[in-house]
């Protein structure tokens, strides 16, 4: 194949020719006569530069095509995974779904929010919004409380990237849901939207709360000072065994003093604030002022019931039961624990306390039966959320979590 040295082929022909020729003949052009050498060399240079451009274009096109197809594939896979998680949250083990979703990194969560979800099933949107909220809560606490860990979804030093991206996604979804609910005049959907707005409202901010938080801080730190810890281990035929012995140190009086002052400040401004009185009663119990403690706890129980404050009422009953038990008043202790159960039947600690008390009183059958009731769980969830387990965090955290649980129940119906 030899190109004519005279005459110009049309552009498409030239292009095709350049590609095929140079691929096939290489330096064949050098065999031409000297008169045509310059022309041919120039022509080849042009051809080479065009060839490079074409190659670049082809490569770019190929890369774009592969990228788009891969992206579609990944999106399809992720969508299917998201659909599975969402379905599990709505119809299966919701806790497991939250656990899975909470482990996704920020980039992936961000990508998921762009996936289209139709308006035909608004409860799917509601469920996805709740899934984002719960995953944000899990990661928010991790970001606040812990440094990096092997399975951590947040970066070292507690990045807030993951909770933030979940929060943004939930806000977008809830806005959309609000529009749908208003458009359809769906009362149940509007109820969900209203309740979720209440749950998402900023925490109460008032001078009393500041004092309460201050008191809680000191209440927490008045705990044990660790003076020393002795550790001994041995190896026996049964395997490694050992005993860690710690001696607990002094009671930090200064923190106890500050905590009591803060709680009394709160109560001077707001005498019916049950949580402040509850904490004051608990504090006095540890200060060996049992009679003062009992008086405050009884009042806290009364105020909490009047205000429908489940957190404070349940714990006041629990603490009172313990106080009665300490003083050998078995009957009153049992009544207090029963009051706690009546206030929040889904708790665990009141059942366990009452069960233990009954067993120690000689009624083992009834005692173990009562203890077994602690495993009944909560509706919509297999996990319990006993106020005692979040006592250090306070009623705000518990109330918020309880509202989230209730909203979860709504989207699962």
């Amino acid at each position, binding site marked *: 194949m030899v190109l004519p040295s005279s005459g110009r082929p049309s552009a498409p022909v030239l292009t095709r020719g350049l590609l095929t020729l140079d691929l096939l003949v290489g330096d064949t052009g050098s065999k031409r006569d000297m008169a045509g050498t310059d022309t041919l060399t120039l022509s080849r240079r042009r051809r080479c530069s065009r060839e490079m451009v074409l190659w670049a274009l082809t490569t770019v096109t190929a890369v774009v095509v592969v990228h788009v197809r891969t992206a579609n594939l990944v999106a399809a896979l992720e969508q299917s995974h998201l659909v599975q998680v969402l379905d599990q949250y709505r119809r299966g*083990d919701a*806790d*497991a779904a939250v656990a899975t979703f*909470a482990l996704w990194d920020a980039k992936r969560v961000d990508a998921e929010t762009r996936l289209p979800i139709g308006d035909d099933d608004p409860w799917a949107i509601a469920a996805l919004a709740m899934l984002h909220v719960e995953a944000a*809560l*899990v990661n928010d*606490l991790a970001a606040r409380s*812990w440094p990096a*860990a*092997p*399975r*951590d979804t947040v970066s070292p030093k507690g990045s807030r990237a993951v909770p933030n991206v979940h929060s943004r996604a939930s806000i977008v979804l809830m806005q959309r849901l609000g529009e749908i609910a208003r458009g359809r005049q769906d009362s149940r959907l509007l109820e969900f939207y209203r309740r979720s707005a209440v749950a998402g409202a900023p925490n109460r901010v008032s001078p009393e709360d500041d004092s309460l938080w201050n008191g809680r801080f000191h209440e927490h730190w*008045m*705990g*044990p000072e*660790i003076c020393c*810890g002795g*550790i001994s*281990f041995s190896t026996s035929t*049964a*395997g*490694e*065994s050992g*005993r*860690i012995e*710690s*001696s*607990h140190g002094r*009671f930090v009086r200064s923190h106890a003093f500050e905590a009591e002052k803060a709680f009394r400040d709160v109560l001077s401004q707001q005498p019916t604030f049950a949580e402040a009185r509850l904490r004051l009663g608990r504090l006095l119990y*540890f200060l060996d002022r049992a009679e003062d403690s009992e008086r405050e706890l009884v009042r806290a129980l009364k105020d909490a019931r009047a205000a429908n404050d489940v957190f404070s009422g349940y714990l006041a009953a*629990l603490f009172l039961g313990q106080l009665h038990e*300490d003083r050998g008043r078995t009957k009153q202790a049992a009544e207090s624990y029963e009051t706690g159960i009546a206030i929040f039947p889904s708790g*665990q*600690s009141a059942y*366990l*306390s009452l069960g*233990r008390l009954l*067993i*120690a*009183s*000689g*009624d*083992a*059958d009834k005692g*173990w039966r009562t*203890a*077994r009731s*602690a*495993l009944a*769980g909560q509706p919509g969830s*297999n*996990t*319990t*959320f*006993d106020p*005692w*387990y*979040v006592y250090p965090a306070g009623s705000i*955290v518990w109330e918020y*979590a309880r509202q989230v649980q209730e909203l979860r129940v709504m989207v699962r119906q």
Partner: protein
Amino acid sequence: MTLFPRSWLCLAILLLDYGAAEQQPQFQTFIEGVRIDVLVSDGGRPISGLTAEDFEVLDNGVPQRVALASAAASLSIALMLDTSSSVADSGHLSDLVRAGQLLLSTLSPDDTVAFLTFSRGVRMVVPSTRDARSVNSALLAARSRTVRRLADRTAMWDAVFAGASLVTGGSGRSLVCVLTDGADNASWVLPTQPRDARWTIDQKARTIDVLRGSGIVVDVVWIRRKPGSLSVQLDDGINGTLSPYDAADSAGGMAFSARDAKLPQRLADRLTALRAGYVLTYTPAGVPRGDGWHKLIVRLKNKRGKIQARTGYFSGPVASKPDARGTQQ
């Protein structure tokens, strides 16, 4: 005699009888039987073939006449997996799950097992069943789904107590097997956030005594965190740690390392020993009743062997509780 006076007489007798019943105090009879699960071993191997005459039981120092009810052939187990942050974050969960699978593989068809997980609360995953495979599946699923939760804390002793409620009262030997790193910072029934040492001891005694008094064995398969570091010492001091001592203190419980290369054999031996245990019963004689804690001593007569048994029982205040049925251990 006419009918009229007869009917009056009957009525009078009835009224007299009613009045007498109103005036007399009601006496109820309580048969307070005590059950003791006993393991006897020599050099780590269970001893079989013993009779009631081979045992000596002292109730508050007073010798008792015991009967040998039967051998505890089957086991009733509550398998409890710690899924709290301290376990999940440190990568210990896989080791604990593997230990749980080993335990399940050594069960016999007559054994029942319930599976529970715990972190800030306790959750029953699989109720008591003879189907160990379903428990195995749940165990693996628990590993994959464990993640930090809101306000995550660990209430291990609450979980142990709730787990014990599932296995008590059965015909077989009751065992609570806890897979954990031992950290507890939220239990209510056995507080491990001590404000005062004396108070902590009192609280601890209440729960441990109840477990001991019920004859429930608490075994622990645990991952020990790095000992000696300051953070661990502080953590143990603040949060408390379930030591093997505590486990053994309940009723002859044992502690195993989840990373022990001989763990499969040790667990198999342990279950064999539990199955080969003896159940002694007696009705207390020569000791007051309803007076609280009774100390028990169990030993062999004229034979060598190591005894593992409960160290006491509660004799409830039955006189003041007409509805109580006494301590049926």
